[in-house]
């Protein structure tokens, strides 16, 4: 009995106020503290009165309902359930050294306690010393307490843990007063001689590695730093967030710590000096208790980061090289024009005014009037302009017909029959020309073209007969001549301009 009193006094003096408060709280969980979950400190008198007025059973029941009766109603509706209490047993410790005991307790209404009750092994039920476990500042629901060294200077301890919720439901227990958990306390040197038993028992709290959200990068520019971002979310905190990277083909990864840039966002930058060739990387992180690693990517399945030369990326679409690219450019051009007017002149074709229609970006159709010194006519054709460059090569195919022309302007003929024939010349033509167009295919372009033209005409047999008769040297002769075909292929050239207006 004397020893028991000494034990209680020693514990009370070492735990100072906290210990005293813990004694009170263990007896009667009362009004919770809204900020900490700790109950308000009730008076001993009140506690004693409560005990005296109740039987053992009713006293326990009263304990359970006491917080609800003594405290204002909790903000969360009472779930009627005690807290969920988990605890990793502590089986050994070091004599004369503080003994850390931890537990994890959660409840929707908030947890009151938990209370560690500890006694020297062999003492009676009244020998327990209650100590309030302190909540973790990092991991919600984790609680721990160091049993003071003054209490561990014995061969063995026994303890149990109780926890209530703020509404007074409980207690949930790990061990019990009747069946406490035994802790063997050995001398420190024994512990040193027995590596299997750690000198300091650390209970690893439950937890989980953080969740990683990362949009993998696939390419970056050579010689430019690469910023890798990730969102790391963990109930038990985040630590050790790194980007592991290596050059493709290397075996070893280099470690690049990630820094928190606010909230759950972390970043790391692979230096420019490292972006010389393709890279591989992954992201990993642990929680505050070393759970993990959580990974995005993996050492054997890293993300491939292709390192590109800056030049292609620096020169976007307008590179005027590939026809395909030009097609895309012109087709996507919001100001793409399809209707215009063309005016040209040349030899031997003469001049013309044509309407231009561009059904495809590389194809123009033209049709209109033609005029040369012989007369008027009509013509039509197509132009292939397979680019939209400042100087664009073209292939032009035209055909047309000159009507009722007068060719006598080009020849010196006095014979009236010959003049009569040439004065009503008609001909059909077709031209093929290569050209260069200067300017914009969408608006205005000036062009030069050269090629060949095929001319075809028919001379009237009657006219030729008349000519032959006129030159007949013998009255006994009679000429009868059929229609003659006149054809020619000749070089041609032209210049002109196109204006697209719509």
């Amino acid at each position, binding site marked *: 009995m004397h020893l028991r009193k000494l034990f209680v006094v020693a514990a009370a003096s070492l735990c100072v106020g906290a210990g005293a408060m813990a004694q009170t709280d263990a007896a009667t969980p009362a009004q919770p503290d809204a900020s900490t979950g700790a109950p308000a400190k009730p008076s001993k008198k009140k506690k004693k009165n409560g005990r005296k007025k109740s039987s053992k059973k009713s006293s326990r029941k009263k304990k359970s309902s006491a917080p609800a009766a003594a405290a204002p109603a909790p903000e969360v509706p009472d779930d009627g359930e005690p807290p969920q209490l988990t605890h990793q047993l502590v089986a050994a410790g070091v004599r004369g050294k503080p003994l850390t005991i931890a537990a994890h307790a959660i409840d929707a209404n908030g947890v009151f306690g938990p209370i560690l009750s500890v006694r020297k092994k062999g003492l009676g039920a009244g020998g327990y010393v209650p100590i309030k476990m302190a909540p973790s500042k990092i991991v919600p629901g984790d609680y721990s307490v160091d049993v003071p060294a003054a209490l561990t200077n014995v061969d063995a301890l026994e303890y149990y843990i109780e926890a209530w919720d703020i509404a007074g439901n409980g207690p949930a227990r790990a061990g019990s007063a009747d069946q406490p958990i035994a802790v063997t306390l050995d001398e420190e040197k024994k512990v040193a001689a027995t590596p299997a038993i750690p000198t300091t028992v650390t209970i690893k709290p439950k937890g989980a590695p953080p969740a990683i959200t990362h949009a993998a990068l696939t390419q970056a520019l050579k010689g430019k730093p690469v910023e890798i971002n990730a969102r790391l979310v963990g109930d038990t905190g985040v630590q050790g967030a790194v980007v592991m990277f290596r050059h493709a083909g290397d075996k070893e990864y280099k470690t690049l710590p990630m820094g928190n840039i606010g909230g759950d966002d972390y970043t790391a930058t692979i230096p420019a000096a490292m972006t010389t060739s393709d890279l591989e990387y992954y992201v990993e992180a642990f929680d505050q208790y070393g759970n993990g690693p959580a990974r995005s990517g993996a050492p054997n399945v890293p993300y491939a980061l292709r390192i590109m030369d800056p030049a292609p990326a620096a020169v976007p679409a307008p590179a005027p090289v590939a026809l395909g690219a030009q097609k895309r450019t012109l087709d996507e051009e919001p100001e793409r024009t399809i209707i215009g007017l063309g005016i040209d002149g040349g030899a031997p074709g003469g001049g013309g005014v044509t309407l231009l229609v561009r059904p495809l970006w590389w194809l123009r159709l033209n049709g209109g009037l033609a005029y040369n010194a012989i007369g008027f006519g009509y013509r039509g054709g197509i132009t292939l302009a397979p680019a939209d460059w400042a100087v664009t090569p073209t292939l032009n195919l035209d055909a047309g017909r000159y009507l009722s022309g007068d060719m006598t302007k080009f020849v010196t003929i006095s014979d009236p029959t010959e003049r009569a024939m040439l004065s009503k010349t008609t001909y059909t033509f077709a031209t093929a020309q290569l050209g260069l167009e200067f300017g914009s295919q969408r608006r205005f372009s000036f062009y030069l073209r050269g090629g060949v033209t095929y001319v075809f005409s028919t001379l009237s047999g009657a006219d030729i007969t008349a000519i032959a008769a006129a030159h007949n040297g*013998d009255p*006994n002769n009679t000429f009868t*001549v059929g*229609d003659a075909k*006149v*054809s020619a292929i*000749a070089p041609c050239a032209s210049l002109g301009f196109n204006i697209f207006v719509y």
Partner: protein
Amino acid sequence: MRNLKIIALLLLPLLGCFAQIEDQSVALSHNLCGGATNCMPGALPLGLIQISGQNTFTVNFGDQPLLQPSSSLGPATLNTSLILNGAGVRLQSSASGDFKNVATISLLAAPAATTDCSASGSNCTLLADYDRNRDGTADQSIALRGHDVDLISYISTTSHSVQLQFQATGTGPGNTWNADVSMDMALKARANFP
């Protein structure tokens, strides 16, 4: 070097430049006797057919345009051909009889008016001929098959005429006769550039 090839390729079509006139049907009809008079005796055994006492008869084409073997046309040279496709002899009057007894007849180009093409070394050119066994019996007209001879080289560049001669076998029409000789020709004049 590559540029030269491209330029040469671009200029290649110019090598095919030309101007051409072509008439497949140029017919000239010539009256042997120079009028309505029947100058040919009837029932005459045929050999060299003399017309108005001449071994040959002259067809004057006149100073026709293009009827020159070659002539310059700007930077180009105009070459002309006048191919004789065939010839025909048609009696002017059926009262003269017919050509049923004509066995063969040949139209020849003679170098001179006095040439007898039947003589060896006469240097005549057969232009067209008729063979009754080959072509069938003629009646009022005889169609002579051409030998694709180019008449241009036989047309005098100064007189614009050609000397022609008939050589025949068999017997002519029973009465005096006159006939129109026609020649069906194809004219082609072409100037190549350059």
